């Protein structure tokens, strides 16, 4: 009886060790140890297929707005507002946006 209890106790403690190891892996981040998330992007995804009018950049401001999608999952900015652009004032070398 005491042998069975001992084995059960050992098994329980073994589970604690395994759980601790999993907790350890989780605590140092997604994708492995060290700073940051590691590798999170799937390998080998494609670019291209951008037709001539497939635009991704900002406009200069004041572009014509399209009608919002009827199935939209967002609230469009009020129709009275024109499309803004990126900051245009110069602020010294190396400044970000």
């Amino acid at each position, binding site marked *: 009886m005491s042998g069975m209890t001992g084995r059960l106790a*050992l098994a329980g403690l073994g589970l604690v060790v395994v759980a601790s190891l999993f907790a350890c892996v989780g605590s140092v981040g997604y994708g492995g140890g060290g700073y940051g998330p590691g590798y*999170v992007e799937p390998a080998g995804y494609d670019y291209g297929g951008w037709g001539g009018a497939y635009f991704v950049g900002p406009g200069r401001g004041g572009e014509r707005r399209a009608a919002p999608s009827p199935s939209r999952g967002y609230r469009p900015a009020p129709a009275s507002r024109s*499309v803004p652009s*990126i900051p245009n004032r110069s602020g010294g070398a190396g400044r970000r*946006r």
Partner: protein
Amino acid sequence: MNKLGWRARFFVSQAALILALGCAGPPGAFADGFDPPPINGQSSAEHLPGKVIWVELVTPDLAAAERFYGGLFGWTFRDLHAGDTRYALAQRDGEAVAGLVERAVPATEKRQPAWLTFLAVGDVDDASRAVVAKGGKILLQPRTYASRGRQAVFADPQGAVFAVLASHSGDPPDYLAAPGAWVWSSLFARDADQDAGFYQTVFGYDVFDLDDESGSRHMILSSGDYARLSVNQLPADAARRHPHWLNFVRVVDAADSSAKAVALGGRVLVPARLDRHGGKLAVLADPTGAPFGVMEWTGADSNQELK
């Protein structure tokens, strides 16, 4: 037998305790003590929620990445190593522009190097709750670093990975990026409408639909009355396309930068092409495959920069 059993139980319990304590570590610090640097050389009083304020590259070869990006954009690097972390702070004319983190690629890894986009928030924990409530996932829990601030890493509901940061040194003010600095960011989504809604909820953006003759959804998301990013529908004609963020560095000539990138060991993913603003942009990959963009932008400082 009983004595042996007692010893075994004692040994295992001690091992478990050591493991548990060792893994927990001190709050707010990694076990190797690495403290990422502030994103500003000079502190700023600005707080600009929704702005892309930082980018970090995860790369298997830090030295090779420094050669590539240094050669392409004129960046210089300050190496910051602590414990197992090898990190380089990229600078342009003395201003911090990016972070580079070295990480070995496991043999079985099916993921690739990439630039991670950091968006400014006022409260990382509020952002974390909003992300989860709207169907996103937490990849790295909110964590405070003494110099940098509090940050976390998420995947949006369609799988695009991004980070948020409440910077201890404030946010970089809204100036036009100089050549060699990050100027624009785009998000590519399977369902651009839904993803725009997600980011609007988390960051409070205004959303503007743009006319797009290609028939694809193209939206500009703004905060503080400045455009911060575009949300684009992924082209539908290929299966191996994955929702993701893409950041653009301002350059004087996108075609010249593309040629230079190839000479340095990189690749051209999308050749230089005219975009909505009247300048060209291109999508490139560094020698390890991390994608990034280059974009021309003529602005208030153009006469000076082209001299």
